[in-house]
């Protein structure tokens, strides 16, 4: 149902801005490398056999992806700076780059990714139904998703928290609190932790709200801009991104200062496929380890003398091959996509999200970005 709705949506281009950025919501994208090294891009549906991604248990997702020769990665496609569908069908952003990192690790080619744009409400079904191999879509790690809903989570790539956005001319400031939303109509997108948090949070602070849940966050923004919704709410990163791209006169304000929830965002995969899980986990860790050691896409070398880097890049032992990957899998990740800091800075600095002083700083600088040792 939603699929059809979304497809029509895209075709009719009725959804204006995507979390403020591009106005494109193509449903799927194939970016597959051809043997001559050029990149061939096709946009469209799943006619290329990519319809059935991975397998729950037998065979494993890794085998499926390798046999297929490309990774099918579920993203938002309309989350500013995280995953924005481009006119050529590919996607850019922080989440999209992690899709590329996984493809580089598994297939040796960061461009062997088919992006599939999913609404928040569709994403877990898509993963469960093997429509995608991995879901990297601003997804919060929660207990029920991890257990009941049948997902498993990779390490958090972005520590976030939910906030609310209102208008300065309605009297809101950075110091406004949840109590100040009493009587408002709030919009957010369906199928999120957001809708639950705000219901709970408003009740706790004694505010009576009317909650309108739309399909995608760009629609919530549209209604917020039109005034149909007095306020809009989602992860702080989403609000910052939208404000940065759509609010040139600084008329909007994001509050409260302390987010109303914890939203650790990261990649998600089907549970009970530990080989595949390890690959995703260690792809993330590899970008963090490289960052911790100041190894970047520019200076990465397989001749690196430092033992941990050497091991990570396949110089010694069988760490990667035992996972079912090529020995140089993570070397490919760093050279083709970059380390954590590069991925972060490239995508998120332009909209005003920085690591310093946040949980997303390295652990040795007071943040929470930390990787276990590669050995």
């Amino acid at each position: 149902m939603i699929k059809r709705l979304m497809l029509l949506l895209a075709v009719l281009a009725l959804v204006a801005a995507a979390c403020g950025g591009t106005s494109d919501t193509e449903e799927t994208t194939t970016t597959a490398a051809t043997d001559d090294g050029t990149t061939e891009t096709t946009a469209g549906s799943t006619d290329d056999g990519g319809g059935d991604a991975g397998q729950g248990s037998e065979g494993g997702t890794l085998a499926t992806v390798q046999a297929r020769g490309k990774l099918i990665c579920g993203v938002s496609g309309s989350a500013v700076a995280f995953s924005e569908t481009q006119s050529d069908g590919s996607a850019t952003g922080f989440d999209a780059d992690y899709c590329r990192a996984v493809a580089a690790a598994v297939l040796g080619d960061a461009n062997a990714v088919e992006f599939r744009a999913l609404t928040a409400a569709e994403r877990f079904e898509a993963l469960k139904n093997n429509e995608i191999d991995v879901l990297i879509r601003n997804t919060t790690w929660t207990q029920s998703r991890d257990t009941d809903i049948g997902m498993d989570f990779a390490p958090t790539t972005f520590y976030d928290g939910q906030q609310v956005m209102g208008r300065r001319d309605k009297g809101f400031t950075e110091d406004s609190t949840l109590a100040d939303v009493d009587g408002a109509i709030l919009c957010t997108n369906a199928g999120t932790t957001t809708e639950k948090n705000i219901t709970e949070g408003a009740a706790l602070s004694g505010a009576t709200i009317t909650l309108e849940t739309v399909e995608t966050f760009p629609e919530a923004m549209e209604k917020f801009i039109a005034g149909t919704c007095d306020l809009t709410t989602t992860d702080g990163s989403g609000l910052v991104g939208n404000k940065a791209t759509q609010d040139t006169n600084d008329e909007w304000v994001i509050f409260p200062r302390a987010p109303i929830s914890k939203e650790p965002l990261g990649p998600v995969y089907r549970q009970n496929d530990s080989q595949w899980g390890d690959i995703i986990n260690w792809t993330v860790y590899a970008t963090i380890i490289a960052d911790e050691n100041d190894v970047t896409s520019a200076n990465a070398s397989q001749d690196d003398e430092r033992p941990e880097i050497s091991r990570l890049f396949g110089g010694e032992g069988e760490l990667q091959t035992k996972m079912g990957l090529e020995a140089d899998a993570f070397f490919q990740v760093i050279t083709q996509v970059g380390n954590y800091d590069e991925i972060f800075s490239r995508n998120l600095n332009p909209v005003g999200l920085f690591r310093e002083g946040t949980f997303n700083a390295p652990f040795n600088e007071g943040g929470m970005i930390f990787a276990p040792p590669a050995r």
Partner: protein
Amino acid sequence: MERENKAPDAAGDSAVSTRVHARPPIWRNISVIKWVAQLAALVAVLALFWLLGSEAAKNFSASGISFGWDWLSDPFGVNIREGIDVNPDSGARALVVGAVNTLRVAISGIFAATILGTVVGVARLSRNWIVNRLATVYIEIIRNIPLLVQIFFWSALTIGLSDLVEDDVGTHLFKASNKGFGLAWLFPSTGFWPWLLIVIVGLVAAKFVAAWRTRLMEETGKEAYSLTYAFGTVALFGLVGWFIHPILGFLSGVWDAIGDFIGGLPSSTVSVVIAAAGLLGAAWWIRQFFESRRTPAGFGKMTDDDIFRIVFAGLVGLGVALVGFALGGASIETPGGDVLTVAELIRNGFSNGFHWFADKFTGDSGGPISFSQANVEVRGAGFTQFGTDGIIITPPFFAVWVGVTLYTAAFIAEIVRGGILAVSKGQTEAAQAVGLKRSQYLRLIILPQAFRIILPPMGNQYLNLAKNTSLGLAVAFADIVAVGFTAINQTGQSLPVVLVWMAFFVTMSLIISGIVNYYNRKLKLVER
């Protein structure tokens, strides 16, 4: 050639008589085949369900995903945009809120689309050029744009309206804004129920008055205005009742007494009543079925289908009776923590119903109906919103409702036009030839026949409309589909939610087609 030559021989007298009376072998016996087919279909359906069920269960256990119904009673945790309860405390409650929203759109849409569609359909046949063109343009535009696009259009249109501002605070007969539409409406007030009772008595009285006037007309041959008299009677009761309804306040005690009486009955009464209703219902149905097969020439012969129906009706009756008694045994824990049998719950429900009714007969002299204007107020921390008075149509509701109504009306218009055209020109001519006036033959000849033609396809449109309301998902309308998706996302229980959806839509469709079929059967032309 050879076969043809043989035919006359085979048709010889003796051959025929033996053929007719000989029992055909069992595999060629139509009545046996029919019965076997019915049973086979039943078995196949059951087997299919069993297969699907066990397959699903296997898959679920393989992927470690739980399948269950706990979420129905667990907290829902997400506010709903609009409905009978915007803060439902359980998944089941949330689905009920969504279902009611769906029904609101579907039922009001069906009414509106029927009226609009009929008007446009008749306009399409109008000899007035402008009216005719307008209707045609409407139909062509609406039919050729996908419904989803239209719903988006209406949504975008409301969103584009101006916001409510402080100057709007106050009451309004009608107010359009990007927060939706507010309009004045009539609501039942304190005296409503006693007044309604008087009006119902008036309706019964009107029936007698109408019958009396009709008899008068038939006896004297003079126009006796039976319809006018009937309306007058109802109006009179309504008007007098408007002022005297407080005198019915004493009924409060009567309802309470009835409620107390029912509440004091042993719970087995419920089982007995249900069982009796089931059995008597089946008996009544079978009886009237026999009646319908009775012709002046004697008893019509029963087909195998008929026998099947009778057996089926009997089994359903027995089933209901069994359920009735089972209810006495099944017990449920109420939210209050008491453990009651279902029979007791039903009994208490009726008892409470009467007590509820008793409360409505206060003898209060307030008017039965109150007129309430939409109001705009400043709420909470300073948001200008519609208040609770009048009727507030939210932008999502508006978009879906207008979308499905206009869309379906275009199809209904074509059906109505086709239906009227399908009544042959000869009917009009014959009616004219016997001297009937235009208004008379439209009412007596054309419309009744057109209605029969229109009804079945109209039923399909009603079903479409009801199902199309689910497109409201795209504009944030909190229908059963949207609420169900929220439930799926918060709990991961996709299969149970899908089952609930299916049960809901199938039930709704069955009810709609049941009503349509009922009228269709009643109106069917008798043919040879």
